């Protein structure tokens, strides 16, 4: 592991939850030690970030690292590097590994591997049910004791209402959060894409918006009943956003996330029959994109989460019904979000950093204000460049990005994790 560095970030605009200010930031031994105007460089390295934004590092609530079990798709190492390049200092690792992250041993393996690699904070989630089979609860308390804060059966929703109610009741006293992949399975059997005009035309089985909205509604009501927090993963439909807006107006402990692809791509992309556009939940209509975007802008949706889902070409080069759903996200999230969300830097970074940090239970070290004594988990963003993805340059082991040839805005220049420059000038240092 690299030594912690002493760095003076000079000339940048600091953006954090408390606001924006032109400050230099001195980092030493893993901590922000001083902020202020025109700080004099001591023996530390002076990094000129004029014209750039310095902010708390991003936190991804929804990363599939694929290890253990699917090293041909991604490993904790390649995924951590992709995260660092995307400006992330922490990722929540989804539990649909093989074996499932449903027990202490697997969770500890993932955490330990993340620490060994040391490119970002890898926080495993736990599954809600053993093997994500939807029948038997995992040991929430044991898993919480080894650092799990977010529980989900992501990849599928917990179908049984009674089980979900008990899971929420049991979780309540532990201070953990249950996160739902909202999909009523009986409405989506065989589905490949959004149910609507486009799927009718293409002759592909449809995934109706209702299948998401019914479970969003159910879990909001279960949160109301139990008082336990619910986090709703990757919202994709206009009515889902409306339901969450209502839940928040009622003061319920409900949070939600949306992905960059659900604010940038419509179901019409599938007209090419390109499996890179197959994702779950599916790409929806322009009206849905507008509603999800509005939800992110007004705070109904708390966080941008990538649902980074690597798949090797061998898996994606299959017929649409066999090809697994999912697309890469970590290395393009900022660029897509910036191109599609018309809001202040503070609001955008909040959705990428401190708001997801709170949901993930990581706000002791991530998404912190850039001020003296805080952990140096930081990102430096060059706001200006329009850029395009070079698939061969991706750190991810997979190539299933839908953004080849698309203009993205703003780029991560440096990422600092625990006081170490893990990305420097857009290049991973390890």
């Amino acid at each position, binding site marked *: 592991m690299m030594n912690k560095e002493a760095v003076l970030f000079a000339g940048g605009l600091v953006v954090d939850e408390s606001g924006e200010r032109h400050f230099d930031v001195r980092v030493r031994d893993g901590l922000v030690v001083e902020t202020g105007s025109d700080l004099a460089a001591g023996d530390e390295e002076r990094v000129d970030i004029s014209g750039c934004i310095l902010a708390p590092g991003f936190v991804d609530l929804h990363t599939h690292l694929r290890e253990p079990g699917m090293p041909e798709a991604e490993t904790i190492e390649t995924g951590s590097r992709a995260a660092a390049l995307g400006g992330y200092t922490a990722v929540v690792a989804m539990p649909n590994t093989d074996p499932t992250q449903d027990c202490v041993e697997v969770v500890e393996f993932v955490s330990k591997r993340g620490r060994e690699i040391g490119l970002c904070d890898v926080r495993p989630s736990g599954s809600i049910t053993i093997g994500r089979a939807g029948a038997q609860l995992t040991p929430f308390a044991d898993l919480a004791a080894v650092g799990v804060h977010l529980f989900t059966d992501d990849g599928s929703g917990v179908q049984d209402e009674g089980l979900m109610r008990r899971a929420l009741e049991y979780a309540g006293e532990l201070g953990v959060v249950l996160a739902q992949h909202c999909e009523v399975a009986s409405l989506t059997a065989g589905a490949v894409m959004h*149910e*609507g*005009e486009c*799927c*009718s*035309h*293409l*002759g*592909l089985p*449809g995934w*109706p918006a209702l299948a998401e909205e019914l479970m969003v509604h159910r879990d909001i009501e279960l949160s109301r009943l139990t008082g336990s927090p619910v986090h709703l993963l990757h919202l994709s439909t206009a009515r889902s956003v409306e339901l969450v807006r209502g839940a928040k107006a009622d003061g319920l402990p409900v949070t939600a996330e949306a992905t960059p692809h659900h604010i940038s791509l419509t179901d019409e992309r599938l007209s*090419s*029959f390109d*499996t890179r556009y197959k994702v779950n939940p599916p790409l929806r209509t322009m009206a849905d994109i507008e509603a999800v975007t509005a939800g992110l802008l007004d705070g109904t949706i708390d966080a941008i989460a990538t649902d980074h889902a690597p798949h090797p070409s*061998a898996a994606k*080069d*299959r*017929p*649409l*019904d*066999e090809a697994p759903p999912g697309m890469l996200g970590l290395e393009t999230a900022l660029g897509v979000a910036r191109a599609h969300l018309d809001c202040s830097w503070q609001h955008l970074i909040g959705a990428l950093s401190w708001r997801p940090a709170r949901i993930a239970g990581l706000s002791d070290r991530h998404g912190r204000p850039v001020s003296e004594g805080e952990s140096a988990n930081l990102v430096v963003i060059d706001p200006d460049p329009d850029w395009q993805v070079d698939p061969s340059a991706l750190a991810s082991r997979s190539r299933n990005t839908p953004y080849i040839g698309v203009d993205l805005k703003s780029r991560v220049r440096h990422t600092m994790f625990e006081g170490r420059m893990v990305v420097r000038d857009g290049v991973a240092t390890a």
Partner: protein
Amino acid sequence: MTLHFRSIEEVGTERIRRLLDLTEHMAAVGRRPNPKVPALRGKTVCNLFFEDSTRTRMSFDLAAKRLSADTMTLAVSSSSVNKGESLRDTVETLDAMGVDAFVVRHRTSGVPWQVASWTPAAVVNAGDGWHAHPTQALLDAYTIRHRRGLTNDFGGLKVAIVGDIRHSRVARSTTEILQLLGAEVIHVAPRTLLPPTSDVVTTTHLDDVVGEVDVLYMLRMQRERMGAGIVPDGGEYSRRFALDERRAAALRSDALLMHPGPMNRGVEMMVDPTELQQSTILDQVTNGIAARMAVLFDLLGSGGIEE
């Protein structure tokens, strides 16, 4: 850019009209004592059939042979696709043997587009999922044109397509080609057998249209869909949507009765269509060869049909 024949929409009106004229020409070739022409000598056509099919596969094979092309056929049961080789590997391997056109059938929509992204060869869609079956559409349109003595303008023609529209690539492609030529198309099916959305006029009352239409196009109804919660089991489907004696008697004498085959007798067809003078069912089979010759010649031919 390589020219393909994958969907009616993609092919467009102008080329469709030209292909209908070419089909007429190929049908004439087919009536000769020696129906074989040297037009595609030296060209290789590979039939890639990942789904059971007898008539379409044999029709394509014969069409290619009548044009003097060399043919290879990979049917799914004998293929390495079952042995873990990916679809892409299969296509790239066959492509390396020197293929000019792949004729692709697959149970999943879109596979012909995927295949085209892995080979420089021309791709003909022989049926993909519920999506498209454009050579069926071409032979259907040609059959109507020929039997009714029409030009390539079908204005004023009224066509009812009956049955499982939702899961039918034939319904999608044939509706498209008929609309494109100016015909009026109506779909007759219960809501569960219609696509989630549609801009085609629909009805559930077959009796209201059967005596009016110029063409009654019956689709194959798979028995597996009955009792699977899509339509009720038992005879209800047949009572509502099959061609029975009463409805057959209501057909106009100059109407056409069409079916893409294979028929499910006793499900959508309660009468013997061979006894009905309106039936075009065997014409469709015959015309299928001419239509497929036209498509292959359009993609691979240079110069004329004759030597």
